[in-house]
């Protein structure tokens, strides 16, 4: 028999239902794996006691056949989700002492389906970053290493702990959040499957806000089927979040394996970037061939405003963040520096509590909203955002999905880009437009580059058509036959 940590989510689900093993056995193996993988720094808080207790409860339910859809399945949760009674930091010094007295809707949904919390996963501070290097708790190390060198690589960000833990088989899946690519880019860097659902599919209630109009929770897993299973349990219509959708929640798993015959795939010309590596071009071409060979029609399309997406995003996201992060003032919770003057207290609290990247974005956001600059930046960016959204609605009259690379490169080295915010921001060039348009998109591992590192392909779908995305993703997964990490070098 496989080691229990070698199983994927749907295999473990089957094993539990067949009583091949108990949830406690499954969870204990994962706790061992979590503890022996600490060198990856994927977890900020490990919750073995909670996990064992939940597993024991799940085992009782499994015996009584009162199990939920994720009964006894251990998963990790990005530290942006508030978890009742469990430290929730957003990977920031500002919240390094924050224990929420409430549970986010999405995690609450998982627990009510029987899922088991392994621990809280590291991420870029307040989900701002593309390498997980901005975390107050230190960087997460990518379990992948290039074949030719020994350097440590970043797992992508901001959901770096989520992607790394899933790639390293610590947990059967993980929750991430995606504001500009924070699920798909790390999924691409770690050879995992990461989906950003349609804006409104998952409730944002209880998720620490970065940019409210862009933030969306999503699953990271080791395969497409697992992803569809995890997503189903995350979704709900939540009256506590006005932007949460009341659309019916389908059984996404049914779409995995569905034929794509006769469906149309758009290839946007604007995603061919100057200086993009041949390797990226090659896997993109491979992806087209796989889908074509499976009966889909490939169509060249144009999304003319794509080039404005990144600057537009880097105005809107910081603007919202500058306001969302104003509540961290040291008055009621979190890090606080005392002073006899309230303004000094604010200054000291926020200077100490926030890291450089967060401060940078707060300053950008404050600037673009200031009187005299609002029209030139924020208002213009909102108009551009509408144009980008229109680009996609037009194209989706002709095609069912859009195929692009997930990232312009494979995982890079630790500290390689951390001093160069612009080159860091360019990582999100393929993922950001999707958030601006509120669309669902997935990154599926498609190949290894010449250095043996994973590369992902991105599939973008119509609003609330995650099912179509899963059907296409499954084809790519099957054709790519992607091999996971062989050398678990980080284990102690």
């Amino acid at each position: 028999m496989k080691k229990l940590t070698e199983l994927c989510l749907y295999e473990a689900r089957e094993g539990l239902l067949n009583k091949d093993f108990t949830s406690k056995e499954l969870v204990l193996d994962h706790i061992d794996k979590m503890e022996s993988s600490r060198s990856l720094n994927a977890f900020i808080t490990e919750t073995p006691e909670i996990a064992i207790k939940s597993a024991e409860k799940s085992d009782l339910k499994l015996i009584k056949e009162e199990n939920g859809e994720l009964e006894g399945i251990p998963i990790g949760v990005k530290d942006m989700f508030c978890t009742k009674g469990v430290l929730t930091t957003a990977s920031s010094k500002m919240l390094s002492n924050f224990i929420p007295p409430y549970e986010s809707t999405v995690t609450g949904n998982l627990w009510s389906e029987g899922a088991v919390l392994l621990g809280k996963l590291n991420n870029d501070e307040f989900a701002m970053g593309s390498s997980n290097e901005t975390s107050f708790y230190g960087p997460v190390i990518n379990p992948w290493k290039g074949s030719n060198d020994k350097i440590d690589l970043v797992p992508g960000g901001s959901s770096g702990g989520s992607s790394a833990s899933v790639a390293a088989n610590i947990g059967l899946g993980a929750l991430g959040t995606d504001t500009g690519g924070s699920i798909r880019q790390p999924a691409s860097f770690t050879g995992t499957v990461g989906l950003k659902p349609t804006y409104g599919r998952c409730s944002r209630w209880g998720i620490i806000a970065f940019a409210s109009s862009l933030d969306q929770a999503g699953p990271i897993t080791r395969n497409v089927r697992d992803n569809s299973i995890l997503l189903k349990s995350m979704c709900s219509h939540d009256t506590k979040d006005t932007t949460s959708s009341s659309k019916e929640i389908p059984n996404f798993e049914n779409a995995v394996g569905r034929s794509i015959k006769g469906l149309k795939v758009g290839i946007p010309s604007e995603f061919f970037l100057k200086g993009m590596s041949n390797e990226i071009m090659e896997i993109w071409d491979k992806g087209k061939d796989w889908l074509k060979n499976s009966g889909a029609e490939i169509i060249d399309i144009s999304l003319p405003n794509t080039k404005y997406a990144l600057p537009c995003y880097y105005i809107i996201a910081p603007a919202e963040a500058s306001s969302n992060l104003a509540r961290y003032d040291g008055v009621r919770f979190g890090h606080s520096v005392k002073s006899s003057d309230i303004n000094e207290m604010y200054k000291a609290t926020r200077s100490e509590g926030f890291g450089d990247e967060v401060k940078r974005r707060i300053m950008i956001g404050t600037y673009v909203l200031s009187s005299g600059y609002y029209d030139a930046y924020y208002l213009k960016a909102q108009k551009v955002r509408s144009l980008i959204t229109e680009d996609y609605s037009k194209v989706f009259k002709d095609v069912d999905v859009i195929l692009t690379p997930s990232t312009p490169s494979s995982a890079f080295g630790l500290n390689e880009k951390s001093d160069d915010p612009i080159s860091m921001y360019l990582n999100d060039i393929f993922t950001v437009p999707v958030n601006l348009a509120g669309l669902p998109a997935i990154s599926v591992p498609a190949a290894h580059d010449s250095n043996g590192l994973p590369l992902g392909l991105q599939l973008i779908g119509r609003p609330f058509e995650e099912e179509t995305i899963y059907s296409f993703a499954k084809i790519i997964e099957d054709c790519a036959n992607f091999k996971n990490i062989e050398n678990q070098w980080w284990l102690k």
Partner: protein
Amino acid sequence: MNNLIEGKTGDWELVIGIEVHAQIISNSKLFSGSSTSFGSDHNTQVSFIDAGMPGMLPVINSVCVEQAIKTGLGLNAKINNFSIFDRKNYFYPDLPQGYQISQFEQPIVGNGMITIDLDNGESKNIGIERLHLEQDAGKSLHDQHPSYSFVDLNRSGVALMEIVSMPDMRSPEEAQAYVKKLRNIMKYLQTCDGNMEEGSLRADINVSVRKPGDDLGTRCEIKNVNSIKFIGQAIVYEAKRQIDIIEKGSLVEQQTRLFDPKKGQTRSMRSKEESHDYRYFPDPDLLPLTFTDDFVKEIEKTLPELPDVRRKRFIEEYGLSSYDSNILVSEKETADYFEEAIKNSNPKLVCNWIIGELFSVLNKMNKSIENCPIRAKDLGELINLIDNETITGRIAKDVFEIMLDTGNDPISIVESNNMKQVNNSSEIEAIIDKIIENNPDQVNALSEKPNLIGWFVGQTMKETGGKANPKTVNEILNKKLLNKG
């Protein structure tokens, strides 16, 4: 009416615009389920949303939306079916989110107009620029500890309507009449209790002065004035201050000022340069607020009769004077009391008793009509007793006093104190005969001084303990002493 103010360099005209913050009557806050009741212990009515906890999201309370629409309709204003909530960003310890959710460019209610009633009987139309919904902040307490400030978040998130007038007022009296009228309309609509002491209604007053016919002068805003009296005082002081500055050859500086009721003065809070950049932008947590015309029509159907219409009805239906009607409707509670009292009795008499006896007693007791110890029904009954000649007017005053003291109803008071009017003419005649017999000098003097008849009336009433039917007394005396009738 001439409102000009005399200065050293000639006459000055006052220009006043008012922003009223009115707390909406609702059980829960604008974006959370917390209670809104006043006077609870500190920080006992605070949800995670009101405290600005991480990951919390606002959800609009539809009752507050209905209340704003209702108020807009009461102000004869345009209701906007599409409006936007914006964030007004600034740091303050009693503002937990670091921003106030308000409405900036697209408010729920647009232009409207109300008619104010002045003491001289004139009326004037005042334009309403807009009404928007916003959250209240918490309260900072600086007097609880020698070195710390405390914050009470009970008010945090409570729904307010900010109602902005056009700069249409020209005197302190007009400004006072405007706030009174606005308050009264909202009390009629039951959208705001209008309690200025508890802070349910506060006014920011924009004051500027100019020479008649000139362009608008530089204005100063006096923040958070919380009584009608202070509104008058603050404007008078501020107008004089600005005129003095200009007449000395200086310029008025645009400022936000505070009124100090103890000194009767305004003082600078911050200048224009120090004003915040609030970085307004649409709140991404909230969708635009939209509703249909039908929704507005349904609310319109529930509108109660408003003071102007009620006054007109009082004049037409009850034959009251315009002046009396105005007094009755200017406080909703008074008009309600009046209409309750007249259910079975004479409206004119009731009106006189309310404006006369009742007001003077309430004034003395420093009570409002809501706390009146005499039930409206009982006052009506008392007036019926006079009207149907069960008691005399004089006795009625005694009954009224007993009602005040005991809270008993007038009929049982009259019964148990044997206060019924004596209508039996032979009984009265016997008493009068006795008085005539015992006072020959007065009878003789009558031919010289016919007014002495009043003395006989008085004596008769004294003998009967005020219970003799005054009409009968007059008839008999006239017949016996003046050979009339």
